């Protein structure tokens, strides 16, 4: 009886376990066999993640490899509103620590989404403070932010990027394809705490960091140019000011600055007027600085000799319905004196001998009918009519810089022709593009566009313009330690109703130094200075100070030409 009961119990237990095992096996078969793909997908979604790997945006260097723009790591704060239980508390903490408007945070957290940005690219201090609260549903992502060590320096050249590090203006926009790099990705298994398990990497493509730009700009010369230009800009309460410093031999832009400017690290605070790169975006009537083109054409065509004499009509000359004026009355002067003293009457008379066709030809050769081709976005083309469409009075205006337009960069290019023995070179900002290890990816060679005037004419022009500085209107551009040459210009601006203004002027100076073997060419333009408005008073001193400091910094010795009168 007993043994029978025991046997029955044994069978019962055996059957119980057998049944349990069978149920488990069926369940296992169901899960692993029938529902395999369904659960496999869910498990993969939980454990296998694909992470986008952001490349590092390339750095921008000056010609001496000094950093002008660089990317640094910043932390961005996001939230998963569904995971936040006490939203009132979270809003209070986030808005206090990050300094964000509480209403904004409330709005963000009330969205029925799994991911919302709270604040991007916060400071490390802010991120560390928020991390201490260990808020559930609030996360942190590493991003990078563009920083500019020189703040506002060269802001119009470098440009800016948006929150996603995409170039928006200037070189950042023009060379975005090179700078931005290529994203990579990583497919890997993660643990329950969402930590990536690198040993279980399934796929990986390393991000390709952006290339670096090496500019022709010299940080030191840029600073000198900006400082000196700002002095005049603020002293004469000008509307705007521009300076372009160029190496005439190869077209390298050593400095380019505009005022007003803005802080690249704080682009939100900039004024609309400060964003424009006036050197390439604004064209204006150049005034007397254009006499450099007229005189070059005259001398190159041998239309007039330097010692040929002109009657400057004591400052007023009536031609038809129009009366030409000089800013100071002059009598009979040689052509050399006409240019040195910037006589409008003398220049127009000499240009009359040259003729309009040739005048137009040289304007074209000097590049006033085309863009300079500088590698910056947004260069404008002036409004210059071809000589065939000039009116009967055009030759009374164009030779002295009226009825023509030019940008500051065009004027710098034009004076470079004189400085570089008659050759027009394309101005360039970017020297080369390198990868992270310094290998050159692309190099931009200096580009000579054409020969404009003969080397002899260029030399004669240099001597002539040296005279304009030493005894003419550009005396304030004279530097003690270096020989300089240049031309002043004071152009009346045109009022909206088409009449020349009597209180709005563009004060300019274009020049080069040292005269024997010019190392730098420069254009300085100050828009609407008050109360003093002459180019020789406002712009020439800027030229003088920039030349003096820059040439000393570049360790260039003065070379004077042998003057043959």
């Amino acid at each position: 009886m007993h043994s029978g009961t025991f046997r029955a119990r044994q069978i019962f237990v055996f059957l119980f376990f057998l049944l349990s095992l069978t149920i488990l096996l069926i369940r296992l078969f169901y899960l692993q066999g029938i529902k395999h793909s369904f659960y496999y997908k869910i498990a993969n979604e939980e454990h296998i993640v694909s992470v986008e790997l952001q490349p590092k945006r390339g750095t921008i260097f000056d010609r001496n490899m000094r950093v002008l723009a660089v990317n640094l790591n910043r932390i961005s704060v996001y939230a998963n509103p569904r995971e936040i239980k006490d939203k009132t508390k979270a809003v209070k903490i986030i808005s206090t620590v990050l300094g964000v408007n509480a209403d904004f945070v409330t709005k963000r957290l009330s969205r029925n989404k799994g991911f919302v940005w709270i604040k991007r690219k916060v400071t490390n201090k802010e991120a560390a403070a928020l991390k201490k609260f260990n808020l559930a549903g609030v996360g942190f992502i590493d991003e990078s932010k563009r920083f500019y060590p020189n703040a506002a320096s060269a802001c119009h050249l470098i440009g800016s990027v948006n929150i996603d590090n995409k170039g928006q203006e200037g070189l950042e926009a023009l060379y975005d394809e090179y700078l931005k790099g290529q994203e990579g990705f990583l497919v890997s298994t993660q643990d329950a705490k969402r930590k990536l398990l690198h040993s279980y990497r399934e796929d990986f493509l390393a991000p390709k960091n952006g290339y670096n730009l090496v500019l022709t700009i010299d940080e030191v010369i840029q600073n000198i140019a900006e400082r000196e230009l700002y002095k005049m800009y603020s002293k004469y309460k000008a509307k705007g000011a521009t300076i372009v410093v160029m190496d005439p031999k190869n077209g390298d832009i050593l400095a380019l600055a505009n005022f007003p400017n803005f802080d690249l690290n704080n682009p939100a605070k900039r004024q609309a007027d400060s964003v424009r790169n006036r050197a390439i975006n604004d064209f204006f009537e150049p005034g007397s600085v254009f006499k450099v083109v007229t005189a070059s054409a005259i001398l190159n065509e041998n239309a007039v000799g330097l010692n040929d004499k002109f009657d400057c009509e004591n400052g007023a000359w009536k031609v038809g319905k129009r009366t030409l004026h000089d800013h100071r009355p002059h009598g009979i002067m040689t052509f050399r004196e006409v240019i040195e003293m910037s006589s409008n009457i003398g220049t127009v008379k000499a240009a009359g001998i040259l003729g309009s066709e040739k005048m137009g030809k040289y304007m074209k050769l000097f590049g006033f009918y085309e863009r300079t081709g500088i590698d910056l976005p947004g260069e404008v083309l002036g409004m210059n009519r071809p000589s065939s469409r000039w009116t009967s009075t055009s030759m009374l205006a164009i030779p002295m810089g009226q009825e023509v337009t030019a940008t500051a960069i065009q004027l710098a290019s034009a004076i470079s022709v004189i400085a570089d023995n008659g050759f027009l070179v394309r101005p360039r900002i970017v020297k080369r593009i390198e990868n992270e290890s310094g290998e050159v990816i692309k190099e931009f060679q200096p580009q000579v566009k054409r020969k404009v005037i003969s080397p002899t004419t260029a030399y004669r022009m240099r001597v002539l313009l040296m005279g304009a500085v030493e005894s003419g209107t550009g005396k304030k551009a004279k530097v003690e330690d270096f020989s300089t040459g240049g031309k002043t210009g004071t152009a009346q601006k045109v009022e909206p109703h088409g009449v020349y203004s009597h209180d709005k002027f563009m004060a300019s100076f274009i020049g080069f130094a040292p005269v024997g073997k010019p190392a730098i060419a420069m254009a300085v333009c100050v828009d609407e200075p008050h109360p003093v408005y002459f180019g020789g008073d406002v712009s020439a001193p800027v030229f003088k100070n920039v030349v003096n400091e820059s040439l000393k910094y570049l360790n260039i010795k003065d070379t004077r030409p042998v003057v043959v009168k």
Partner: protein
Amino acid sequence: MRLFKYIMILGMVTLTALVYVHQQVELVKLSYEIDCKEKKLKEILDRKGVLRYNISNLESPSRLERVLLERKVSVFYPKKGQIIRLARKPSYAPNPSLRVSGLGERAGIFKLFDFLSGRPEINAREK
């Protein structure tokens, strides 16, 4: 005997399973270690970037000028005659005396053993 055989097989299976599990545990451990080191490397590189940026910032000409102005330090360019340039010999230039002291020109068969001395490097530098 039969039992022993079963125990042996069971032991072998268990051991294999343990080795497999141990391997997986090690892999996970290694992953954490890599992750930790990667984080450290990133931190160091970030720090390096920040320091480099700070250097650029501190060396920025506009900042230096501002600081000099604040501290009322006036800097002038030296005038002519205030600079005396001394002719200097670069310290890395090869010393001619080396030629005498064992590293000089060798003749004939001894030239073959030049690679043992610093001679080729000196030649390259001189070129």
